[in-house]
């Protein structure tokens, strides 16, 4: 399952590798990280931030500048999109990157979700 890919890579360290002396590194990597699946398509993942009446406009802009390192003008444009259009795509990348950014937005108290870029 794709959603597990970010944690499954932790498992090799915990499981004893005793049976096979010859390890097919590529196959193992693929098995543990699911890379074949994620590289099979070039469609990136995106992170959306949704509007809410609580987070201050200054705070949202600050989060975009300090976490993503966006210049002030870009951060303000994205913040206004969230505020006026209800949502904005704030970052894109691999699924792992999208998950990490989503979690970071949640830790700042912003409501973010991630999805494949080609989903309506």
């Amino acid at each position: 399952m794709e959603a597990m890919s970010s944690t499954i890579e932790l498992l090799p360290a915990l499981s004893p590798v005793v049976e096979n002396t010859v390890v097919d590194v590529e196959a193992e990597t693929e098995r543990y990280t699911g890379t074949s699946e994620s590289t099979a398509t070039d469609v990136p993942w995106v992170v959306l931030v949704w509007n809410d009446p609580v987070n201050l406009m200054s705070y949202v802009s600050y989060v975009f500048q300090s976490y993503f390192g966006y210049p002030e003008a870009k951060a303000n444009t994205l913040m206004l999109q969230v505020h006026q259009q209800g949502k904005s795509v704030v970052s894109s990348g691999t699924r792992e990157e999208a998950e990490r950014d989503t979690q970071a937005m949640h830790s700042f108290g912003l409501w973010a979700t991630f999805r494949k870029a080609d989903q309506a």
Partner: protein
Amino acid sequence: MAKAFRKTRKGIAGELERAERDLVRRLFEDVISMLERTAAADEDPLAALVGLDTNAARPEDSALLRLLPDGVKDDDGESLEFRRLTERSLREDKVAALRAGALLLEQNPLLLTPEQAQLLARAINDVRLVLADRLDIETDEDAQALHEIDDWSQAEDLQTYLALVYNFMTWLQESLMQSLLAGLRQPE
């Protein structure tokens, strides 16, 4: 009355009265207990070690759900999966910021580095999210209407009191943000 935060050459300075600091600290502690109360007591130690939470479930309390929101829209299965992978560390992250915020408020007057100010801002924000849920703030108009309430002598019922506290936290947060944004524009 507290003085608004401002950027100085030594750091971000602010001043709160004792009663205000006590109030804010108590609010931080309330949110910490919300976040910790629901954490599973009997959990798989191996899962805990790698940061997993196999028992994670969507919070029933709407305020807690606002602190720990769904990561995927319109897909309960994917959302739950994400929650199991990330909710534990999200809780820990939030509790850490709230604790740091409470600790920072022990000094007066306050003099904060940008990193400390960010921790305090995250803590204040989580308190505002919880208060907003209790006050049923759902639209920008709700927030605007609430903003008008600013007379502490009117604090006769719980809702008015919560609204006054919410507005105080908003005021603190806004001045903290202006100081942090000024620092980003003009780093020392």
